[in-house]
């Protein structure tokens, strides 16, 4: 298999293409949901880890080394993917109005798509990295320098100590939306 960053870059590129197809007006609503999801998951990570970790320990037993990690990684991934899916497919917070004409509109769709791609692919990667890659153990020894550099900038690890920072862009976007 190739380097692990290729896998997550591919996910990111797919999200960027979806962003280009949907346009940035729709994508901004999804970005808001993703940012809120990031805040909630990072803010409550410690108590959730403790509670679910103990439950998983009881269920899988201590001899099953990767059991709790697999459970926690799977839990966060499923919750995050469910929130993202709701943000894209559900009836959610949307921005009204028309996008700017091309090329500005196209460029903004690309940029917002890149942000969403980074947030989604980066968060999925983080929940594998944080729990020791319970799905793909053999990859760990093959990390390239690029992958190691990228890991330091995965979205949830940016503000692990103070996730409230994630609310800043959310608050500003909400003000713009309400102001109209």
């Amino acid at each position, binding site marked *: 298999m190739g380097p692990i960053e290729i896998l997550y870059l591919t996910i990111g590129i797919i999200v960027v293409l979806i962003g280009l197809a949907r346009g940035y007006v729709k994508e901004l609503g999804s970005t808001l949901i993703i940012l809120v999801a990031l805040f909630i998951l990072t803010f409550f990570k410690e108590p959730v880890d403790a509670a679910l970790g103990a439950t998983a320990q009881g269920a899988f037993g201590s001899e099953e080394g990767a059991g709790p990690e697999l459970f926690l990684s799977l839990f966060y991934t499923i919750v995050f993917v469910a929130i993202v899916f709701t943000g894209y497919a559900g009836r959610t917070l949307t921005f009204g*109005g028309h*996008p700017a004409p091309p*090329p500005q509109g196209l460029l903004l769709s690309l940029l917002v798509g890149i942000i969403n791609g980074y947030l989604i692919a980066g968060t999925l990667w983080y929940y594998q990295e944080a729990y020791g890659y319970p799905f793909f153990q053999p990859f760990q020894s093959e990390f390239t320098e690029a992958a190691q550099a990228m890991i330091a900038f995965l979205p949830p690890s940016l503000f692990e100590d103070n996730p409230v920072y994630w609310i800043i*862009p959310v608050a500003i976007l909400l003000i713009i939306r309400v102001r109209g």
Partner: protein
Amino acid sequence: MIGEVAILISLLIYLTFFGWLGWRRGFARELTVAIIALLSWLLLDQSGDIVVAMANLIAAGLQFAFDGGFTGSADEAFAALASAPELVGADTRDAFLYVVWVVVLVVAYLATGWIIPDKKSEKNGWSIILGVLNGFFFAMVFLPSLDALFSPDGEASADLDAGLDLLAMMGRGVSLLWDVIVAFWGLIAPLGSVGILILLTGILVIAAMSIRGGAKAKS
């Protein structure tokens, strides 16, 4: 770090100038210049020998005329012509074609300004992008010459003889783009997480503010 910032600022000023030029000249003029620049580049790259042969032929014709081929002894003129060196030899071929391309480019800039009226050359976002792309293309072409001009020892880091080599030019383009990304990252990285948050928030705010007809929800 300071060097990277300087590179980024220099390139931004350079591309902003071309973007502004694109806006002033409009879409049709910039598109015409871009097409002429690219086609003439490809043409000179593929069929440069024909241009060189034509230049040598014209030079020979002039030489023949000045040596009295039309008025005096034609035999003497032919003899003088046979012994005269070629205007463009194998060693000056690339430099000659490079000069030809620059002349074509300057003429294209001036001619599009005269021929295409202001009303038919719309000023929009595309004209800015085309202006920036033109600037980027010229940077790729002129970079080795300027590099040699301003370097202390007068030697270019890139191969000057590869002036008309399309692959070498594309390589310089990719390298220039990569330098920009590295320089940009050099600005963001020291700020760490906050730098990324500022960048991300800035893009989202610009996107939200650019929505036309109000951003009020209809959920």
